[in-house]
């Protein structure tokens, strides 16, 4: 077996494979999916173990002795593997709380868009950074013990206008936007999802109701409920929390920025 081991956000894990090339590919996947937030550790110090078994016609993935997946197609396998790595780190970190959310910074404070997949996080984030916001993340809000949000600027996956039906991964540079470098406090939380006939009519929520609305997006909840809720409460206690359905982002991005300005600054 060949091995490497990383620590990321306090989570120590190793990856073993029977093939050296498969391990090299896995290392690139892990580094990429964790946006470089990895540091090499001694494999014996790892608390979790992925195993990638490569045969001539298939790939098998295990985590901590449990068979997770098999896939003959490299891209599908590595998508799955990358998702499991992200999930492992997000759900097991004891130092950081991971929320599923898009994050941008506006005038030095974060604007959070908690949402599930396919509810338009990337679209919203892309629209906001096109208007001058600083890019932090289109996937996770990573909150430290002080309640500050750390950047996790993975590439944004957007529709490729040159190739209809295709997607491409781009950095914030493609929007002529800056990328966040340091942890900052939360100014605004916007709980929204697209609805075809919706109007942008935000209602201001209390901190308690806002915290309740955020809970479904708290990936740290299952492993660390008390700590994660305490940290999120701390992080949003001075934030403005808004909730509304929204139409196409092009129709409301300016209104969102206006209201962020109005309430939070």
């Amino acid at each position, binding site marked *: 077996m060949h091995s490497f081991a990383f620590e990321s956000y306090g989570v120590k894990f190793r990856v073993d494979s029977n093939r050296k090339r498969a391990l090299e590919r896995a290392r690139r996947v892990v580094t990429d999916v964790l946006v470089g937030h990895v540091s090499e550790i001694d494999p014996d110090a790892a608390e979790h173990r992925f195993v990638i078994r490569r045969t001539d016609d298939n790939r098998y993935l295990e985590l901590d002795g449990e068979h997770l997946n098999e896939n003959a197609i490299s891209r599908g396998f590595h998508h799955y593997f990358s*998702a499991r790595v992200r*999930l492992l780190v997000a759900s097991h970190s004891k130092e950081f709380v991971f929320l599923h959310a898009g994050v941008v910074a506006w005038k030095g404070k974060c604007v959070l868009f908690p949402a599930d*997949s396919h509810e338009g996080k990337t679209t919203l984030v892309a629209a906001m950074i096109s208007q001058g916001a600083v890019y932090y993340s289109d996937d996770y809000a990573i909150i430290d013990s002080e309640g500050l949000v750390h950047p996790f600027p993975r590439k944004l996956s957007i529709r490729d206008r040159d190739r209809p039906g295709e997607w491409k991964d781009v950095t914030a540079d493609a929007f002529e936007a800056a990328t966040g470098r340091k942890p900052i406090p939360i100014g605004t939380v916007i709980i929204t999802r697209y609805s075809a006939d919706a109007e942008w009519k935000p209602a201001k929520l209390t901190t308690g109701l806002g915290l309740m609305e955020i809970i479904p997006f708290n990936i740290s909840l299952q492993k660390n409920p008390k700590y994660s809720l305490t940290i999120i409460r701390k992080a949003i206690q001075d934030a403005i929390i808004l909730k509304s359905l929204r139409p196409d982002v092009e129709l409301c991005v300016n209104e969102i920025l206006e209201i962020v300005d109005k309430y939070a600054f």
Partner: protein
Amino acid sequence: MTDKIYPQIRKNGLVVQELPDEVLVYDLDSSRAHCLNDSAAVVWRACDGSNSVADIVKTFERTSGSKVTEDFVWLAIDQLNDNGLLEAGTAKRFAGQSRRDVLKKIGLASMIALPVIASLVAPQNALGSVSCQCTFTGPGPNLDCAAVPSGCPMNSCSQSASVCI
């Protein structure tokens, strides 16, 4: 009758966050979050197993500076009970009555905000809230998924489906 009832909040399986005018309670057993408004929160804090309903009324009046009836307190207790936030066995005052009738009756007599508990179900596990990424579980590859670098196409993405996490 109410002098003999000593409501007690559940001791196990709850994560409680105290906020300035609210209480957030997350029920680990049911994966439900509950947000208690100020009035419900005052009653919640007083349900320690040593206070009768009449005692809770006094506590409420002392805390809020407003007069309330036992029915007002019972409205909160019934909601706490309905949401499984009290130890089992607490009687219900308004069992069988419509919520609208109860609110109407108490609301008209109340000068302060009625106790309200808002609730929401959180996902059972973290897999439900991570980005959708595809794999296949059947005999052949899911080519649609494999062709989309960012994850599943909308139609094949289901949080309950084993093909996506």
